[in-house]
């Protein structure tokens, strides 16, 4: 049983890490450190396995140049001006007859969900509460907490947290992030965002489908 919980903790940690990475992809323009990491050996194997094709230019270009290129791409794709892909749930989701605008009912629902879980928005955070990076970061934080609870042998809290994550994924990102990613795949000029969108879409679906099973497998005992 302990092994099962170990697995749950390991799994939650892994999920937290992936969500953390994806949140960083969409939060802001990439930093040189970020790009260096993505180019590094940690990712080369899994990218090859997954068929993530960032293109040779991505690897050949110096980080500083690549950063500038991707900053322009990020602005074009997600910021505007002009036609862009708004990275906010309320733009994609109609709730209560809303009109798909900024700070719609979906924004409020996300904000309340996050606040009900005990988190708040940083004072310095100037974005909107339902930005894709916020939703991914929230899942990162929940999965991280869940992992800790498994390690503390607090299966009840860990289970509850799993339920919270399932509920959040079902009510929020799974309803719009795949469509958001599809738009990116269609509009991206640089392979980086196109491929990251594919990874995001794929992982979200994978997590969504797999969580019920994980929850059912939850066990008792100490964390290794």
């Amino acid at each position, binding site marked *: 049983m302990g092994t099962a919980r170990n697995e749950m903790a390991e799994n939650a940690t892994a999920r937290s890490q992936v969500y*953390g990475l994806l949140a960083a992809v969409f939060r802001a323009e990439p930093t040189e450190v970020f790009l260096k990491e993505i180019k590094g050996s940690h990712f080369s194997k899994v990218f090859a396995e997954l068929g993530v094709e960032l293109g040779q230019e991505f690897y050949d270009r110096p980080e500083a140049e690549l950063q500038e290129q991707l900053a322009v791409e990020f602005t074009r794709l997600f910021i505007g*001006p002009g*036609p862009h892909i708004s990275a906010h749930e309320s733009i994609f989701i109609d709730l209560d007859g809303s009109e798909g605008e900024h700070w719609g009912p979906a924004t409020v629902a996300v904000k309340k969900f996050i606040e009900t879980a005990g988190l708040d928005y940083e004072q310095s955070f100037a974005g909107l509460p339902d930005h894709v990076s916020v939703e991914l970061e929230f899942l990162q934080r929940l999965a991280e907490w869940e992992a800790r609870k498994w390690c503390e042998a607090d299966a009840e809290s860990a289970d509850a947290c799993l339920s919270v994550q399932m509920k959040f994924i079902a009510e929020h990102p799974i309803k719009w992030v795949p469509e958001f990613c599809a738009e990116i795949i269609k509009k991206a000029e640089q392979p980086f965002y196109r491929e990251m969108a594919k990874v995001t879409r794929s992982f979200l679906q994978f997590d969504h489908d797999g969580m019920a099973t994980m929850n059912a497998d939850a066990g008792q005992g100490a964390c290794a």
Partner: protein
Amino acid sequence: MNKLNRRNFMTLAGASGAALAAGAGGSEQALAGSIKLQKGGRDFSPTTMKERKAIPTACWGCVTRDAMIGFVEDGRLKKLDGNPNSIRTMGVICAKAQAGVNQVYFPDRILYPLRRVGKRGEHKWKRVSWDAALDEIAARLKKLRDAGTPEKFMYHYGRHKASQAATMYDFMAAYGTKTIGNHTSICEGSKWVGQESLWGGMYDNWDYDNTEFVVNFGSNQFETHTNHIPTSQRLIRAMVDRGVPLYTFDVRLSATAAKSTEWVPIKPGKDGLVMLSMCNVIMNEGLYRKDHFKYMRVTADYHASVDDKIAAVKASVAKFTPEFAEQESGVPADKIKQIARGFAKAKSACLITYRGTCMHYHGADQERAAMLLAAITNNLDTKGGRVMGVGAGWKAPSSPKAKVHKGLNIKDGFPGEAAFPTHHVSQSVLPLIKDGQLGRPEVYWWSCHNPAYVYGDNKAIEEIMKDESLMPFTISSNIVYDESSALADIILPDVTYLERWDWEDMVSPPQVAEFYIRQPLVKPLGEARCQGDVWPDLAKRIGFELVYKDKEDYVRQSCEMTPGVKEAGGFEYMKKHGVWHDKSAKPNFGFYEKTVDVSGDGVILDEKTGVYWNWKKAGVASEAEAKSKGYLGTKGAKKAYVAQNIEGTARSAYPPNTKFLKSGLLDFYSDNFAAKGFPAFPTYTPVPEHEKMGKDDLILTTYKVAVHTHSRTSHCKWLTEIKHDNPAWINPKTAAERGIADGDEIKVVSDIGEMTTTAYVTEGVVPGIVAISYHLGRRYSGIYGSGNSDPINGGAAADRDAKNKWWKKHGNHPNALIPNWSDPISGAQRWMDTVVRVAKA
């Protein structure tokens, strides 16, 4: 991409974990605190109880700036309504005000600072931080300031009023530039110049609550007036409750004309003539009232008797017979007589004018004719008449001024372009920058303004803004990507007016000042920042300090130092109630009659003009020198004006509160005008281009509709759904002569440009003109206004409501046909004078 499985998921996770550990996640995350989930899987469904807050604020949809209440639910602005405690608006707002909700949430909104990375106008941008943007701006401005050339920084604003303007001017004075452009000359500058030359001030108001008769020349009062809601409802009430007649002279059957007692069609540019003709009737039939003549100067003689003045006015208007006016204006002589008699015989009467009257060649003189008509019937600043507007006089903190404070002389038009550009010549700013003879700014920053759209010959303006050799560095503060911000080097995301602090001061129809504030209803979206918050930040980066830390602080300080507001409870009172007025104040009528004590130290009587003035205050060395030079001959004497001798009594009369040096008399005979070669007395001057028109020529006139401003509303879907097309109005006779039928595509051609639009053949416009509203025909500004955004792509297109957008037309912009040409008196743009040819496309 291959499918994820547990194995590659774990590999991905391992790589991700390593990357995050190496700092790839960045330091700025969105969420703070720690997870607090209760044991036992408690249902944490968010509460369904929605909190609604009602917050007093103020509109900015147009210059009227109505006091409002914003209703906020779950942090989202849901609805805007009038503030029932406002004595100005009486709790009413218009459609534009209600659609303010769209201003905040339209998905095309600019939410982050942007730096151009491609060629100017190439639409290639990179998001930058506020720090990066302000550091770059500060470095450029500091360099200019340190070099002793702060004037090479130009700030050009569209709509700035009250504390929004005050904080900007405070920063600019502390920085040191006087190169500050505005937009009044494309709005109504000639009207103000005409008034300033007479009663020494401007912003006329109309006492509809007490009037018995109203005559309107060229004002769309019920749709778009400068003080729309506060005045329109009072005029409607007067008409409905008291049967007050309203006669509207207009080239077009506007909604105002349609609601009037009678629409009197008139040819363009003839309003002043008809007013002078009404004066002719009134003087000849002895219907004038003597009361105001003692305050009037109608010949060069400052001391003429009332009887002499009456005779002089009679003589001056003798040639403007109703028959002559009919011949020129198309208004039947009998109609002129009938309305003139009604106006003069009414116990009180209001005379309204606006762009239809003033935005012509010699428009300022047409306004002077209007003032003459009001004065001879004693309807100037009297109960029920045309009165001097009363606004709130706020006190505000002031930062230390820069040691070097100067400006480029590019605000007042080309040399000789305008005699009295007291409200500047904004349409000539960009052409002057191109010309270069008066210098060029190195940094050009515009805000709440869209020069490439709102001026005449706007295509040429766009080319100037695009040219980096003429305009090396450009900054736009904006909420929307429009024709001009597309040409900026840096775009700073401004807040909407519903996300910021201000104190407000617009004219109050009850003639009792209303003090009111604007406060944020919601947190600014994204990284939008109020300019009043940016100024102190930018000042620090350049190396000086302002006396307020942000806009809220500025408003707070103002509330605590403004008499009346302070005693009522200051900032906290204003936050709670939004509006304040002195309940014991009496309506301010007849300020000119106030007697003045002239026994003060240094006060002397100028024998020539009858002005009491304080030579000490004027900075003259001695009384003897003051008397020798005289009031008119002393620089700065205007500021030392005390009173006017009116039949032996010192009265406040009409002080020279603006740039015109004048006595306290209403200068219907104006030395200022005569000295510049313009008619000293109001007269009729035909528009020169109209005199030379060929038989196929028409006059282009433009106008506003109720649901749009010039350039700040087309992204508002509620408004654009109502009005998204602007066909050309053309009279059936005029249309038939050109073989044009209703709905035909037509080409309108001027000497500088052409446009294709649709004909709206209607009796609602006089023959010989074509009328096109100017709010539409946007190239940018989102899908609702321009239709240019692919409905799948994102931005406005990501708005789910876009699928409900049923309209396909987005109108055509007429400004490309209209040259930037000025009234030689005031420098106001001559919107209504352009000669065009119209034919089937």
